[in-house]
């Protein structure tokens, strides 16, 4: 396929009229370098032309250049990936966080508790805080549910008089014990480990709870 971008020399004539500078003296495409090539002396230097490199050697040199390129690219990509995949360490974020005194929870009632991430980044602001739904099942027994719907992760709200958790995205509903009541959620609400210690209710902060646990 002939290159449409390589103009034939005689085309330069018609080109001049539409030259951006509208200057008849401007060099046309056929005369690039317009210093008058006929005046260039035939003998420009007195070096003997070097013989072409042997094919074997050119292959080695190309391999060398390519190898340097690959190593350089790799040595930049690897640290990039390391930063990209970096995450807060899991061990640090699992602690028992107090969420209230025993007397604050009525038996059979579900309450929203908030807690602060144990080791938030200093600039985390709003998102250092998290919420969970805590239900006091009996005197010493508690259940703690994540506030995210198991369908696609929208925040669920507890409707006290209806005794249901409702999701505002796709109408998922859960019973008070976290099992699916209606709608598209595929599994019960995720639970946090919860315990009572010396009259204080404590929640095990595990980030977004792992469905397998």
């Amino acid at each position, binding site marked *: 396929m002939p290159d449409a971008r390589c103009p034939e020399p005689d085309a330069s004539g018609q080109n001049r009229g539409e030259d951006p500078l509208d200057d008849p003296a401007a060099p046309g495409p056929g005369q690039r370098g317009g210093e008058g090539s006929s005046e260039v002396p035939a003998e420009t230097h007195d070096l003997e032309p070097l013989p072409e490199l042997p094919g074997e050697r050119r292959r080695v040199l190309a391999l060398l250049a390519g190898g340097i390129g690959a190593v350089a690219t790799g040595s930049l990509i690897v640290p990039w990936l390391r930063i990209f995949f*970096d995450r807060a360490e899991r061990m640090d974020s699992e602690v028992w966080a107090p969420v209230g005194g025993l007397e604050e929870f009525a038996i059979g009632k579900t309450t929203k508790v908030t807690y602060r991430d144990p080791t938030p980044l200093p600039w985390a602001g709003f998102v250092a805080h998290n919420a969970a739904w805590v239900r006091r099942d009996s005197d010493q027994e508690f259940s703690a549910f994540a506030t995210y719907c198991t369908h696609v992760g929208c925040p669920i709200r507890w409707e006290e008089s209806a005794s249901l958790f409702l999701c505002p*995205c796709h109408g998922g509903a859960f019973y008070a014990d976290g099992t699916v009541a209606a709608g*598209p959620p595929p599994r019960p609400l995720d639970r946090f480990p919860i315990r009572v210690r010396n009259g204080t209710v404590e929640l095990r902060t595990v980030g*977004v709870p792992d469905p397998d646990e």
Partner: protein
Amino acid sequence: MTRLRWIALAGERVARRVGRWVYDRAALAPIFDFLDKHKVPPELGRTRKGWFYVFGQALVFVFLAQIVTGSALAMKYIPSPDHAWHTLEFLNTEVVWGGFVRALHFFGASAMVLLVFVHMSRVVITGSYKYPREVNWITGVGLLVLVLAMAFTGQLLRWDQDGVSTVMVAATMLGRLPLVGERLMEIVLAGDTLGGATLSRFFALHVIVFPLLMIGLIGVHVYLVVRNGVSEPPRAGRPVDPGTYRMWYRRHTEAGNTRYWPDVAWREFVFVAVVYAVIFLLAVTWGPKGPGAVPDPTMVEVVPRPDWYFLWYYALIWYKPAALDMVVLVWFPLLVFPALVLLPIFFGRGERAPTRRPWALFAVAATILLWATLTVSAIQGDWIPDFDTEPVPEAVLEDAPLGVRDGAGLFYERGCQYCHMALERGGTYGPDLTRSAREMSRSDMAVRIVMGIGNMPAYQGILEPGELDAILDYIFWTLGPDVTPEGD
């Protein structure tokens, strides 16, 4: 010669000299010469079909506008989870033209998403992805992914409740992938949960990584459009034969003698002007989008909604049957793009005319119809409980017996009214119970309330003794005094 005229002439001489110098040293000659000579299929210049070939360039120009408005916004935006929301408020209220530029950026993004699909539809309809333009198409699919990724991350950077929900939804959906799910979830959140590291990575992707990839891919895409030539409007009975196509195309364009500049370029620029004008107009009339409520994860009483470009998907994950859960949430997004990449490999030759390719027309029409239907139904959101519904006013219940009044109160309190209508009041998730009462016996309805059915929760553990009867009294009372329910 007056003094003024002399100055003008001298100025002109200097300008010409500078211009000539730049023209020579910057080696502009081949570029101008190429622009001057590049030929396109004559149909594009001489017939109105040219108007169907303007979308690609409009995308490039809107992309450039996005770089301009986006880089201006980046000067004020702070990608920290604590500050992002405040800097957007600051842009809206304190910075001169800040809100206007935010609006331009939002409506520019909307134009990108819209145009990328219009452009792609045109390419499918005219079969332009066929030989020898397969890689044009493949780079185009890459650009489609990037445009959607930009729309997604952009919505997230608004960092209001919707933005936070966007991350959570993305994380939850990825979390459903087998094997790698949990790991991917941690990568999206940059940790176990939403935190200080979550936002900045999306900022880096939206502002640096994706735009750079886009610039690269646009470069390849445009280069290939130039090298392979703009595809000629197809004609039935003129199939693409890889053996002869390139030669035929060269003869066709040479003989047609229609040049890109300005024979067809004027249409593209007129269209770009229209698109810019619409974006400006929308930005002036609607103003910036958001930010909405503060991004506080402990606030659960919110109704998150994606921006309009993802509403269709938001509706799709409601409509799909439960059995297709993994298909729609995981395999569809995962496989649709590889399938698009492979399209020209398997259908790379033969007829290009839409009249000979009814399946292509059908696919485009079906996609548009499906998209529109899903988007409209997402806006209506019939399946969303009506959290704002109000209890039945006392005045309506004036003549009602005591049990019915209790029932009306319970109908609201126990959440029936979030999803069901009675007396034209309530949600649309479940059936209108005034209407159901006309067709159903009292005992049938009682069974459904107690046991639940389909998307109806079982109320047996929720209702106190006597409440069921009160609610049923109310529902059947709404039929009016003259109607006697069947059965019972």
